[in-house]
């Protein structure tokens, strides 16, 4: 009896209605945070002592990498919830999180390589973090393409949920092994200066951008899941009346 409130979260109709109410507010908040963060970061933060203005790409690079990693765990947890409690909404969240994660990982990698050109002198360096993010991209692509290669969408979702969980178990091992590989093959010419404590004028815009990116992720994920709900529940009455209204 006391579990009825829990099952409400699993109802696509309830999710569709509640996100419809939250979304406008959330979207405006995201917009303002991103604008404030970008203006402060790109316009008002002091230039870095060593890297000059090129460091400002950090305001895109770090938040998108945060979300790339967090998004993978969200995807795997949603998949696990779907498998354990047999909740179709959780599978749809997992399915929609995959392409979004691909985009965030790609943005992180691209900004990283753009940043690498002026600071390290080349677009790609086989360092531990960059390589780990590249493998994370491959993991995302695997989950994405496995889910779409089944004729029956439900079994595709189950398979990619399992793959996401297997990948999550592997992520720490992959990260540690790549880290170890990097210290073994470390080229002498590149030096990584350990990040000095950031000046508050530099740090607060970054914090705003990170929160803004988290909200952006939530908004994009909600929009994608809402579209998926309409597609998959198209034969139910509430979607019909909603669309025909």
């Amino acid at each position, binding site marked *: 009896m006391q579990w009825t409130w829990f099952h409400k979260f699993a109802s696509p109709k309830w999710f569709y209605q509640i996100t419809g109410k939250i979304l406008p507010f959330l979207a405006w908040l995201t917009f303002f945070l991103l604008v404030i963060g970008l203006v402060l970061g790109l316009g008002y933060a002091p230039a870095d002592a060593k890297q000059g203005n090129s460091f400002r790409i950090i305001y895109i690079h770090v938040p998108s990498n945060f979300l790339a990693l967090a998004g993978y765990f969200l995807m795997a947890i949603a998949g696990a919830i779907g*498998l354990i409690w047999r909740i179709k909404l959780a599978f749809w969240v997992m399915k929609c999180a995959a392409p979004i994660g691909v985009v965030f990982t790609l943005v992180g990698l691209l900004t990283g390589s753009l940043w690498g050109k002026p600071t390290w002198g080349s677009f790609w360096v086989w360092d531990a973090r960059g390589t780990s993010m590249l*493998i994370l991209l*491959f*993991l995302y*692509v*695997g*989950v994405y*393409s*496995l889910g779409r*290669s*089944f004729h029956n969408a439900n*079994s595709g979702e*189950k*398979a990619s949920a*399992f*793959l996401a969980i*297997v*990948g999550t*178990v*592997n992520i720490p*091992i*992959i990260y*540690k*092994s*790549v880290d*170890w*590989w990097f210290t*073994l093959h470390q080229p002498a010419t590149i030096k990584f200066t350990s990040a000095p404590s950031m000046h508050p004028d530099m740090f607060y815009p970054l914090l705003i951008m990170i929160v803004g990116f988290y909200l952006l992720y939530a908004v994009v994920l909600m929009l994608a899941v809402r579209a998926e709900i309409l597609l998959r529940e198209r034969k139910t009455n509430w979607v019909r009346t909603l669309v025909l209204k």
Partner: protein
Amino acid sequence: MIFATKENLFISYLKRDLVVSFRGKSASLNPLIFFVMIVLLMPLSLGSYSLALQKVAPGIIWIMALLSVLLSAGSIFDEDYNDGSLEQMIITPNLLFLPLLGKMTAHWISKSLPIAITAPFLGLFLPMPENALIPLLVGLIIGTACFTLLGSIGAALTVPTKDKSFLLALIILPLYVPIIIFGSSVIYYMADGMNWRYPLAALSSIFCILVVLSPLAISGIFRSSMIE
């Protein structure tokens, strides 16, 4: 055989799969022949300068062993899926852990182990220094077992799909990263005069994790996807 007692499930599936693979002789040799051919094609594309070859030889052998095992492990459940015996295995009340482990062990003995044993001889062709051959052999024996265990997870996930070879590579290759790193490091450690047992120990610990988790994951995949 299906009614065998629990203690014998591992042995009975091991025996069955070994018999099946050795009766169809040519098919079980194909991964090995592919491995030999593709490694021996390498000098033709890289040139026969022995110094350059010596440097990349361990990496080449490891990558080619990975591809050969991946290609063969991807179809480990296909025959059983097509003739229905996989379904029979899944609907038995037994735990699937031992049967699956037996199947994977049989696959490793018949298809992956020959690759590991042949590799040092190919190393002589490339050429690799003779004292690197033992680390190569030991590393590959454990490494191919890891490849088989992980590749079987991919095989279980893609069993009902068509044209799976690229899909399988796509989902499994990122998971092979730690094995490749530690496996090839065994030889590079050896070449640099360091103690090559350290990366070997890391590789073995990955094997220990996989031996427990891989059958569990596969039985989870089969039980949740088939019984509906």
